[in-house]
């Protein structure tokens, strides 16, 4: 070692041996301190409860801390300096900060389904039994095999991967990329379902105050005293913000006590709520802010919600989110033991633990000096304060017994797993195990960025502050607004509180603003020690391993916009979104471009402020509760009757009813179909949308929304109805029944019930508000059952009170009316049929659903009555060529469905004009026909495409597709419906139904879509 070194060393070892560490300890502090941890005792006045010791483990090593510790403070107390490895170069990393901006100290907590990765040790409240593991290393944390990457660093600069891994081409996916993916990421998540619950809550207030530091507390108190309802939220477990880490006096009491008193007053007010452990993560439209409350691991383990996401609706939002101290970039500035000066202060003052045995402060701000002062006040050894500024620019007072160096820099450091030595710009070396760095403060402008407020650079405080244009209802104050003196901060906070209350209509007495001295807050815009370049890489983004060199390379290669540089180097894309890194990067970018930071500008922050678990945003909408499940009134009866159910949108519908001896669903479905064709079946059709339409102009209105005419429908009759979209494509189909001149009931498909109803509202209120018509969805009011089959009337007569009223003459095909059943129960009866058989649909108030099904089944027993499900329903309608979901796919015209004749040309209706656009009436639009396998037995598949026999199966020769298929027990063969070019002209022709994804190709004969009883004689019987 040089004499200079020994000299420096001398100034350290002159101190009494017992009070200081040994020379060896200073060289290898990590191992040394672990032999004499501070976990047993804490410095005077720490805000931890030494009567409540807690035990935890880190990488399996048992450690001790106290209630009030964070994992980070406890690790420091246990002498654990090395806690993580960086993302790219696997550099040894320690704890950099004492807050949520931490880029280094990310750990994995817990195990199994409860495992939680990338958790910042600096924000985890210590709890008994906490088990933390370090991340992102192969082998042990101390000897990480992946650290070899650091040696190859010159080849791994910004964007290196864009320039290589291209040869041979095949290697990218087989060799290169798998290797990259294995190396990627930090922690590994569990593959088990998250066992915890997350709640969602809503809160409303006049004034939301984000941050319970001095400014936020002053603002909240003023607003609350003035009479406004106030929510005060802070991410920390207790209020106070920087007051917890510093030693200021406010109104002549210690800052911490003042904070507790204010919080107490706020708690006592009825319309005020203090939410600690609550991070406001996002600002959204119209004053909505989203906050995440972490209820802690104890709660989560007891089955209580792990977190609550609260949507806060505030008239005014005061952003008192404070500021984040930024590092200074110099060679090897990323070693464990190098910390933000404000963090060192927090650990010493709040947690009573000294991060080092021998500390040096390197600062470009007066604030850095406070760290030295507080350390000395607490009996800690500070070797020197090294200030980048000339002495004249420094207004902080000197400190007895601490060396002062001005216009001096740290140019590099040593210490493989922890800091041991500093190299100064004057050539000297300093042995120390802790370097406290203070490069200035970045106001926390994130929430204003969420509203697209682009931060502006203010040279005099060397920081970006939120720009005026943004959300006027967001009021940044205190450090978040670039005001750094405590006294001024308190005044501003108080005033902002009063003003926010006033603008929301409250003018009560707010009392006086709290008073305090302001410490010196001088800062110089100093970011990077240029002369350190020759000593190695200087880190900007610690987590993503972005160094000063990378910014230089980005500029060299033309990535000169700040957005380009960010994307090319990944600066600010780590889990801290660059809270500590961005300004350093921007300053270097400006320097490289020979411009100013103001001109260079900044990227903006996106929500969330701190990372939020996906489960928290999802809340309770998980598993079966992901979406509501709708069940008809007949559901339970069907379940008892052996039904299996299938999702139909939000509904569950019976797909078939399995009887004894039936081992395959086809047996059940064939039986149900045969029974309907030969006897009688009953089917729950309640899920069809039902809309009650009334009013003098009801008929006129229906004429305009249906393609066919409804005004000509006679009272007591029902008519099939086809609804188009304004673009002329079929929207939905159903029936309209006319009970009175001014009273209709229209039905929709299950799938479109909601959209049809909204469409009608639009048409009425938006297009024809002058029409006298009202409608109401009555889907859930009525239970509806289809009774179909030759014996349908026989069965019906057994339940209606007046059998004479349902004879073929009294109640012919397409009749409808109101009646009573089962001894006076009011009901609606429709003689309609989807199955093609003699059929009725009987509707009762929903509460009678189950009992009606039971009654029908019982009454029909000797008629061989069977309940049938949607599968049989589907077979029955395909045999009849009725269209359904497969055909009503939002791409077909009435013409394509063979329903063109239904569209009335005598009246205007929605879609009436655009349905006649050239293509839609041309031969290029396929038309519905039926299909039968040539061999009479090959299974058909929906989704198969049609090709002329022998034609090459390519897009150009595609002639349409199969829309619905089934096995028809009635015809004893598979049948299908499909859309085919010029279909009706090709009856009898043979085409190929090609289904390569199912490895099938079947020759099919084109036929009419009506396979069974085309004349419809059975309907009218």
């Amino acid at each position, binding site marked *: 070692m040089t004499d200079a070194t020994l000299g420096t060393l001398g100034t350290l070892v002159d101190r009494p041996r017992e009070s200081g560490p040994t020379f060896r300890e200073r060289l290898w502090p990590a191992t040394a301190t672990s032999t004499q941890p501070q976990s047993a005792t804490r410095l005077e006045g720490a805000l931890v409860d030494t009567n409540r010791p807690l035990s935890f483990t880190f990488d399996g090593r048992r450690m001790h801390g106290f209630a009030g510790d964070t994992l980070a403070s406890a690790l420091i107390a246990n002498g654990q300096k090395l806690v993580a490895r960086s993302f790219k170069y696997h550099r040894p990393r320690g704890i950099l900060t004492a807050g949520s901006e931490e880029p280094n100290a990310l750990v994995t907590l817990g195990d199994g389904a409860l495992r939680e990765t990338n958790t910042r040790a600096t924000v985890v409240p210590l709890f008994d039994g906490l088990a933390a593991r370090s991340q992102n290393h192969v082998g042990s944390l101390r000897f990480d095999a992946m650290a070899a990457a650091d040696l190859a660093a010159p080849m791994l600069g910004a964007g290196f991967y864009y320039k290589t891994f291209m040869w041979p081409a095949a290697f990218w996916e087989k060799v290169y990329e798998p290797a990259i993916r294995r190396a990627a990421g930090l922690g590994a998540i569990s593959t088990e379902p998250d066992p915890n619950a997350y709640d969602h809550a809503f809160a409303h207030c006049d004034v939301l105050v984000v941050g319970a530091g001095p400014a936020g507390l002053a603002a909240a108190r003023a607003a609350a005293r003035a009479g406004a309802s106030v929510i005060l939220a802070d991410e920390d477990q207790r209020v106070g913000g920087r007051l917890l880490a510093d030693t200021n006096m406010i109104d002549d009491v210690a800052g911490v006590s003042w904070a507790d008193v204010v919080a107490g007053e706020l708690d006592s007010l009825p319309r005020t709520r203090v939410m600690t452990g609550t991070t406001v993560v996002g600002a959204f*439209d119209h004053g909505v802010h989203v906050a995440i409350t972490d209820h802690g691991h104890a709660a989560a383990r007891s089955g209580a919600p792990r977190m609550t996401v609260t949507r806060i609706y505030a008239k005014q939002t005061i952003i008192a989110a404070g500021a984040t101290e930024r590092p200074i970039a110099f060679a090897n500035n990323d070693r464990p033991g190098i910390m933000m000066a404000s963090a060192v202060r927090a650990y010493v003052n709040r947690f009573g633990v000294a991060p080092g045995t021998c500390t040096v402060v390197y600062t470009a701000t007066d604030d850095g000096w406070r760290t030295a002062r507080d350390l000395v006040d607490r009996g800690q050894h500070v070797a020197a304060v090294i200030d980048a500024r000339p002495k004249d620019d420094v207004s902080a007072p000197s400190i007895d017994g601490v060396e002062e160096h001005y216009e001096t820099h740290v140019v590099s450091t040593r210490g493989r797993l922890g800091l041991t030595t500093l190299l100064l710009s004057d050539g000297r070396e300093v042995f120390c195990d802790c370097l406290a760095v203070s490069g200035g403060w970045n106001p926390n402008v994130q929430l204003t960025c969420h509203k697209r407020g682009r931060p502006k650079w203010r040279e005099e405080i060397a920081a970006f502050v939120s720009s005026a244009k943004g959300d006027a209802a967001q009021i940044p104050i205190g450090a978040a607004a670039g005001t750094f003196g405590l006294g001024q901060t308190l005044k501003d906070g108080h005033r902002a509180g009063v003003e926010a209350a006033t603008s929301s209509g409250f003018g009560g007495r707010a009392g006086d603003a709290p008073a305090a001295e302001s410490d010196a807050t001088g800062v110089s815009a100093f970011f990077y020690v240029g002369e350190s370049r020759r000593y190695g890489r200087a880190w900007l983004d610690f987590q993503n391993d972005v160094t000063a060199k990378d910014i230089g390379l980005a500029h060299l290669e033309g990535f000169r916009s700040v957005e380009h540089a960010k994307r090319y180097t990944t600066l600010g894309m780590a889990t801290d979104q660059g809270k500590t890194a961005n300004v350093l990067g921007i300053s270097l970018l400006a320097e490289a471009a020979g411009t100013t930071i103001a001109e260079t500008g900044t990227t903006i922050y996106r929500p969330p402020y701190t990372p939020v678990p996906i489960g928290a945003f999802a809340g309770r909408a998980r598993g079966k509760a992901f979406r509501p499940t709708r069940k008809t009134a007949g559901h339970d009866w069907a379940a008892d009757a052996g039904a299996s159910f299938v999702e139909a949108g939000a509904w569950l519908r019976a797909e078939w009813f399995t009887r004894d001896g039936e081992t395959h669903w086809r047996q059940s479905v064939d039986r149900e179909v045969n029974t309907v064709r030969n006897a009688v079946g009953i089917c729950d059709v309640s899920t069809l949308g039902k809309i009650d339409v009334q009013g003098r102009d009801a008929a006129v209105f229906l004429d305009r929304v249906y393609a066919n005419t409804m005004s000509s429908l006679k009272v007591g009759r029902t008519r099939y109805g086809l609804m188009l979209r*304004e673009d002329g494509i079929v929207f939905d189909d159903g029936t309209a029944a006319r009970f009175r001149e001014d009273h209709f009931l229209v039905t929709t498909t299950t799938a479109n019930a909601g959209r049809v109803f*909204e469409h009608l*509202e*639009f048409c009425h209120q*938006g*297009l024809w*508000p002058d029409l006298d018509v009202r409608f109401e969805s009555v889907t859930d009011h009525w239970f509806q059952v289809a009774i179909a089959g030759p014996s349908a009337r026989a069965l019906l007569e057994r339940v209606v009170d007046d059998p004479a009223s349902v004879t073929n003459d009294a109640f012919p095909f397409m009749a409808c009316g109101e009646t009573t059943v089962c001894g006076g129960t009011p009901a609606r009866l429709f003689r309609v049929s989807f199955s093609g058989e003699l059929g009725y649909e009987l509707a009762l108030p929903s509460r009678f659903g189950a009992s009606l099904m039971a009654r029908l089944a019982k009454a029909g027993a000797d008629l061989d009555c069977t309940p049938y499900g949607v599968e049989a329903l589907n077979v029955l309608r395909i045999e009849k060529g009725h269209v359904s979901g497969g055909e009503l796919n939002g791409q077909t015209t009435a013409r394509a469905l063979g329903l063109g004749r239904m569209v009335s040309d005598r009246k205007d209706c929605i879609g009436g004009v*655009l349905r006649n656009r050239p293509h839609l009436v041309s031969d290029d639009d396929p038309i519905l026909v039926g299909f039968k396998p040539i061999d009479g037995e090959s299974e058909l598949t929906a989704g198969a495409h049609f090709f002329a026999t022998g034609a090459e199966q390519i897009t150009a020769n595609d002639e349409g597709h199969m829309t619905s298929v089934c096995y028809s027990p009635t015809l004893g063969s598979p049948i299908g419906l499909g859309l085919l070019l010029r279909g009706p002209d090709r009856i009898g022709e043979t085409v190929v139904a090609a289904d390569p994804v199912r490895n099938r190709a079947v020759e099919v004969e084109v036929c009419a879509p009506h396979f069974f009883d085309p004349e419809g004689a059975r309907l009218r019987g």
Partner: protein
Amino acid sequence: MLIDHPLLGPRDAREFTYLGSAERLARPDVARDDADAITRFHDYVYLRENPAGPHRELWLHAHGDRSLLIVTRDTRTHDVLSVELAREAGTAETESEVRP
């Protein structure tokens, strides 16, 4: 997002279904055999002003009182500038805007 319902006061946007530009209210009043019927309906159904700024649009209070609202909202900031009931504004508009 909050929409200040003329009858019900501020309501959360989740209660509404967005039905698009209020240009949809200006449905052409033409006989279908008019030569330009398809063109005019094409323009009505498909072409949009799509302003970056105040935009008149339709919000149906589907999970509320089912009022169809005409909301004027700045598409750059989402600030709601005015809200009115479509059934009280709709007809006048159809007449005025349909005639070229």
